[in-house]
């Protein structure tokens, strides 16, 4: 990754235009060619520096359900519990964290009412208490990383 890649990443985190030739519009602000920009983005996606390029949708505004949940998996059962949680297609991310509540996962469902059902299933399958940490208010979702 060189300086131009960094400039491209930092610029495109802020927003990509909706226009006839959006790559050309961005390329001009970076003072490079349209083809160069497209090739660079393609390369950054292929090498895994970028995990995505496109519209970021807001799940709840589309009518879906989304929550963060946490549980305390006993060390001896950690792998078993992780497998039971991950087996649910609605579990989008799952992280091990260094706390008594050591497993934190994000659930995305097509309907908001499915959240409670899936959490109840996980609780019953694992025999563990699942804490629903659903958001009450969102202050900022910037997702910006200085490259």
């Amino acid at each position: 990754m060189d300086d131009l890649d960094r400039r491209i990443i930092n610029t495109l985190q802020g927003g990509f235009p909706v226009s006839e030739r959006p790559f050309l519009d961005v390329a001009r602000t970076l003072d490079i060619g349209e083809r160069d920009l497209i090739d660079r983005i393609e390369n950054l996606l292929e090498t895994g520096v970028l995990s995505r390029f496109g519209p970021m949708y807001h799940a709840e505004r589309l009518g879906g359900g989304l929550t963060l949940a946490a549980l305390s998996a006993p060390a001896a059962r950690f792998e078993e519990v992780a497998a039971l949680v991950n087996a649910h297609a609605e579990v989008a991310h799952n992280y091990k964290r260094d706390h008594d509540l050591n497993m934190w996962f994000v659930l995305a469902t097509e309907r908001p009412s499915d959240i409670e059902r899936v959490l109840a299933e996980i609780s019953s399958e694992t025999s563990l208490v699942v804490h629903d940490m659903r958001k009450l208010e969102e202050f900022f979702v910037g997702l910006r990383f200085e490259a």
Partner: protein
Amino acid sequence: MSEDTPIDAMDRRLIQATQAGLQLVQRPYHQLASELGIPAEEVMHRLRRMLETGIIRRIGVVPNHYTLGYRANGMSVWDVPDEDISAIGRRVGALDFVSHAYHRPRHLPMWPYNLFAMVHGRTRAEVEDKVAAIADLIGSADRGHSILYSTRILKKTGLRIVG
């Protein structure tokens, strides 16, 4: 999807066609238009409208923060008075090193924290410096905080919003 969903059938097709990403061609919206059988102007109009209503948060790139060297991923959690949380949350969320900030419920007695702020750094020391800056900002309303580092990714698939 629920019946009161703010999108119509064509929006839904547009979301399906773009949730894996935009194509890397000179005219990506024209490409989508020919796939969907509608004019490019309509594709752009629908995308602009979904940006305005917040259905699309933004169009752009998502870097893999691990690849960029941000290997310390700290979820800072705070116990602040409920009556002050909106004002505090907005100030914490406005910090440029906080990627997400949310008010979430406490689960007493084991979980007294009601404000979550994700802080990423190249090292844990960098995350701790940033968390100290948040503590300074919150001041005496900080009744206790903790940092939970992610120590392993157990699952990571993209959110598939429309099946």
